[in-house]
């Protein structure tokens, strides 16, 4: 299966530490490796402090990775310099959608200027008319009324703002989008709207997504493959169905067992699985392929069982 797919992003032994050498050193991301294939949606799931958002920010180079490689279309982008021409190009190829619709739009800018920011930076529109026209197209694409171009962000609801954020990311015509918990701050009725929109745009523009989330239910639905992160490491990586039907790591099992289900009968019979860090984590473990396409963070001995 993996053969026919070409990777667009390859993360190799990525480490992202903060406050290196100080007493409060944090190993936010600690030696993770994975590939993301063209056209797929790659889900990255973890709870707060697992390092999932840091991973996303390292890949898009908001941080300078401590070590490791990040290949984008075979080209290592983990060390390119800010302000270099390569970086400028990279900034158009990869974009990000943020979590908080209230903090991700500059409150002092009009919607038009927010969306056009990428156009302006990269001189993608020749004149003012073309710029306006592009913004109009983008607003239509995210199902917003182009007449609202001259409004300010605070006049919009959370779901509408999130769509403005999506339009901003799309403006530079990226191939790869990192969606950092794009729906977790939204109401349930609005979440589905945004997810549907993201999927439609993916089909239209042949995009690849990395979808970061803290719970498995929506990720299971939207992703082709899912990586589960815990404490800076990927503990399990497999196809979405495999993660759901055949979770191998105790942490994945615990996450799955905790998802609330809108069905009282299911809830009555729910058995919660607790995860004990000390019991399941040890130094001799690493991520290895235990079944075809199914990776598990375990020791060599444990791997033999599968």
């Amino acid at each position, binding site marked *: 299966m993996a053969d026919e797919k070409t990777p667009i992003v390859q993360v190799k032994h990525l480490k992202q530490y903060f406050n290196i050498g100080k007493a409060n050193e944090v190993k936010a991301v600690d030696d993770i490796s994975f590939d993301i294939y063209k056209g797929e949606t790659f889900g990255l799931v973890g709870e707060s402090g697992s390092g999932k958002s840091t991973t996303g*920010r390292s890949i*898009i180079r*908001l941080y300078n990775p401590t070590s490791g490689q990040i290949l984008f279309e075979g080209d290592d982008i983990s060390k390119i310099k800010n*302000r270099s021409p390569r*970086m*400028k190009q990279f*900034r*158009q190829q*990869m*974009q*990000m959608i*943020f*979590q*908080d619709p209230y*903090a*991700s*739009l*500059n*409150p*002092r*800018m009009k919607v038009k200027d*927010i969306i056009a*920011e*990428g156009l302006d*930076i*990269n001189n993608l529109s020749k004149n003012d008319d073309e710029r306006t026209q592009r913004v109009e197209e983008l607003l239509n694409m995210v*199902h*917003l*009324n182009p007449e*609202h171009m*001259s*409004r*300010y962000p*605070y*006049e*919009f609801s959370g779901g*509408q703002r999130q769509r403005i*954020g999506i339009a*901003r*990311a799309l403006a*530079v015509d990226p191939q790869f989008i990192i969606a950092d918990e794009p729906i977790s701050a939204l109401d349930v009725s609005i979440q589905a709207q945004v997810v549907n929109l993201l999927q439609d745009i993916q089909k239209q523009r042949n995009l690849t997504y990395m979808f970061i989330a803290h719970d498995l239910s929506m990720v299971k639905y939207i992703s082709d493959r899912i990586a589960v992160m815990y404490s800076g490491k990927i503990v399990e990586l497999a196809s979405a169905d495999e993660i759901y039907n055949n979770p191998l790591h105790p942490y994945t099992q615990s996450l799955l067992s905790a998802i609330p289900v809108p069905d009282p009968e299911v809830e009555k019979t729910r058995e919660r699985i607790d995860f004990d860090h000390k019991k399941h984590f040890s130094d001799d473990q690493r991520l290895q392929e235990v079944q075809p396409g199914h990776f598990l963070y375990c020791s060599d001995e444990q791997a033999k069982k599968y």
Partner: protein
Amino acid sequence: MEQVPKIPKEKFKLLHKKDNQAQESLGTPSLTYLQDVRRRLFSNKVATVCLILLGIMVLISVFAPVVAPHNPNTQRVEYSNLPPKIGNLDIPGFNGMQNMDGKSVDAYKAVNAPKDTYYILGTDYLGRDLLSRIIYGTRLSLIVAVLATLVDLIIGLPYGIVSGWKGGKVDTFLQRIIEIVSSVPNLVVVILMMIILKPGLVSIVIAIALTDWVTMARLIRAQTFQLKEQEYILAARTLGESSTKIATKHLIPNLSSTIIIQTMFTIPNAIFFEAFLSFIGIGIPAPNASLGTLLSDGQKAFRFLPYQMWAPALILSIIMIATNLLGDGLRDAFDPQSSD
């Protein structure tokens, strides 16, 4: 629960609504942030009055040469220490009458002033028109205020932004400098300046320039630290926006409330600092007027000719109180949470 109301049958037809954009309409009228701020500011009566008062003062100062009835530095010793008088109106306190040895005497007659000669706020011990001196004094105070504000904006603002934005070692280094600067009292700076320069506007402004931006820089740095983690700043970075552009497009507009409010607190400080220096005699040299020198002169004759001190003291107080209250009003106006 209740009786089913009678409703015509045809009302129960499904409308088959489609997912259309009409549902995306916005309910509130389009108001820009600044319009919102203005509305909040003007609904605060105290702040509005202060704004008007300061506006009038600024206008009078700008047009001082036109507005002032006399040359502020012309001495007419024969008309020294005349009490206030407005035309030939008989307003108590403004009719040229003065208490001498228990009797009320027309001071203007006593010095044989022509009928049409009068000084609205009286004259000082050298016969200079007090009103004109106050107008020019206020003008000088406001010049000091403007210069102090400029220094705040030119040094304090970029300093704070760079320190907050860069963080790390740059920030530590810049903060050490601030600590050193702020540990030297500005009075010491002024006295040191006098060794090199003559007392006057220049040395006052340099003294303010050297010390006054520190507060602004600190506030801006703290705010920048918060702002730079905001997702819209991250979004701008992922789009490849340069640091300078991020500063001008994203940081400064979102720092504007802090900037304006801090300025409103810088102004009275600077004005008071100048007045204080002039009062103790190391500020504006004679014969130029400043509110400080006027207070100092007036204070010497306060027991006999109290009007010479009342007028400049009143003006100084109004400027101080008005800027402070306006600052408070602006702080509330810029904070959307304060809407009540």
